[in-house]
């Protein structure tokens, strides 16, 4: 590569140095985790029904959360991005609150409304539906901590769309709904997918709020914590009985699965762009 005469070599060198430090901080733990796990440990985790069901539960609940975030977040993002109305900026700020509070605080907040003796929880309890310590509780928790990402992505996409685009469509006789489906949505779907990925990633990483709202059934993040607290990093086997497949092994497996889902999403996105 030949550098052009205007290339600011020293400036770029300093930037690269600083960037390198951050990159190290971001990447080295992941690499080290994978290095610390072993192939036999990974196989052990793959053969452990407790680990597998926890990972499956994580994938399932965070996927469900992403789906709900799209179904409910696209309408909210559209309203916030498209219209000016009294209280708009207040709503805009309120939906950012979940991103700014500690996760345990989020858990406490959720339990004060969905707990079986509390406002909403009691009502559902009356119909025999519990809102804590089940799949429903997990999804409720994950929506609270992660749906904002989808709303924000959609809101920004709508804001950057020329409002006259919808006027053109409607002037040609298309209803608002037809316009939304055929014109608006195809223009913002990339942001919807990005929002869904962010929501899903955030949801699958949650642990703090789940400790309080849904300690069981255990999702992967909670199981990994339990294994680490009880048995440390590595697998623990006593008299042929697997006491722990090793927190590091389950963690590595989780990383591989999350990466696989992420890459799959990206591939689908790229294919649709062509």
């Amino acid at each position, binding site marked *: 590569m030949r550098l052009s005469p205007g290339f600011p070599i020293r400036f770029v060198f300093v930037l690269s140095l600083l960037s390198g430090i951050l990159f190290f901080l971001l990447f080295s733990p992941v690499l080290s985790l994978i290095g610390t796990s072993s192939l036999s440990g990974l196989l052990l985790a793959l053969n452990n029904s407790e680990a597998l069901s926890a990972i499956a539960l994580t994938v399932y609940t965070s996927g469900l959360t992403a789906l709900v975030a799209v179904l409910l977040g696209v309408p909210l993002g559209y309203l916030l991005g498209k219209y000016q109305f009294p209280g708009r900026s207040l709503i805009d700020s309120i939906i950012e609150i979940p991103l700014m509070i500690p996760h345990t605080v989020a858990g406490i907040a959720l339990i004060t409304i969905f707990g079986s003796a509390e406002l909403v929880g009691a009502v559902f309890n009356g119909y025999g539906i519990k809102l804590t310590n089940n799949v429903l509780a997990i999804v409720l928790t994950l929506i609270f901590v992660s749906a904002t990402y989808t709303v924000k992505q959609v809101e920004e996409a709508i804001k950057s769309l020329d409002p006259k685009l919808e*006027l*053109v*469509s*409607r*002037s040609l006789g298309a209803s608002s709904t*037809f316009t939304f489906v055929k014109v608006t949505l*195809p223009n913002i779907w990339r942001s919807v997918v990005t929002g869904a990925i962010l929501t899903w990633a955030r949801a699958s990483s949650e642990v703090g709020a789940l400790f309080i709202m849904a300690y069981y059934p255990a999702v992967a993040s909670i199981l990994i914590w339990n294994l680490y607290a009880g048995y440390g990093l590595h697998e623990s086997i006593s008299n042929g009985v697997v006491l722990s497949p090793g927190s590091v092994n389950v963690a590595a497996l989780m990383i591989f699965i999350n990466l696989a889902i992420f890459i799959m999403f990206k591939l689908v996105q790229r294919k649709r762009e062509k």
Partner: protein
Amino acid sequence: MSDGVVVQSLSHKWERFALRNINLSIPQGSYFVLLGPTGSGKTLLLEAIAGAYSPNEGRIIVCGEDVSKLPPERRRISYAPQNQLLFDNMTVRKNIEFGLHAKGIPEQDRKSRSNHLMDLLGISQLVNRFPRNLSGGERQRVSLARALAVEPRAVLLDEPLSAVDAETKSSILDYLRRVHKETGVTVIHVTHDQLEAASVAERIGVMRNGRMLEVGTPVDFAEKSSPETESIFKSDNLIRGNIIGKEAELALIDTGAGKIIEAITDRTGQVMVHVKPENVIVSKQSVDTSARNRFFGKVIEVTDLGPTIRLRISGDTRITAIVTRRSFFEMQLNIGSDVHVFFKATSVEVL
């Protein structure tokens, strides 16, 4: 002629701008141009007619129906915005058939309608292309076809020539004339360019600061512009004529009073011609030059423009010339001077 689009005492206030008491009556099937400088409110008026917002006061009546409270989709007025805003996720055909699709028109009918329009606008070869692969002129024609496909009661064109180069401009203007003639649709065309307005309009409405200053035909404006509209519609050397024949590649344009202007054009019939005052040569003697057009007249008005002087010359026809201050003094010109004026056939713009 029945009324196509009527605007009655329309007023609307925004934070920093207002449309004030606009009245307009556009006959059905006519070609109307809204002319005004940037920020005069012409696009906002167009959006009110399209139904983008409900004006504070006044009514909009289309073919006898009060549409002021109707949503855009029920007005049957197609809107073609300045940057076209084609649907990027659809092919040219899908774009054109969009409105028909929304209305549930069967595929066979959609196809024959879009084929006809693509034919009329010379874009049949683009049928399966996507908007991102089109040139400015092509995009404009697709936008026009999309607007016309639904057989609207009126078409609103916002600066349709803003994104195309000079050469494409005249071809788009040709298409606009042809399409208007063929479909007979009412057109409201917004522009800031008076020559563009004079070229296509049957009637022109001149706007400034949210007000409608004056409405008239291009000839009205060319022949007796008021001091209010003069800065927006400069009538200098804008002459109505009739193409009466061709002689060795040159079109002969009869401007009345038996005076012929020679120009290069493919147009026929009624036209407006324009010569930039800077391109008019003034001489005290009759001299032989290559310029095809020569007139004789008297200087009737002299205006000091600083480095240049504007002369209005009255004779066979009214001509405005701009000469340098130096020429003006060296030639000892003044009001009442007899002069010959010349301009080349190639400097005549046929609108």
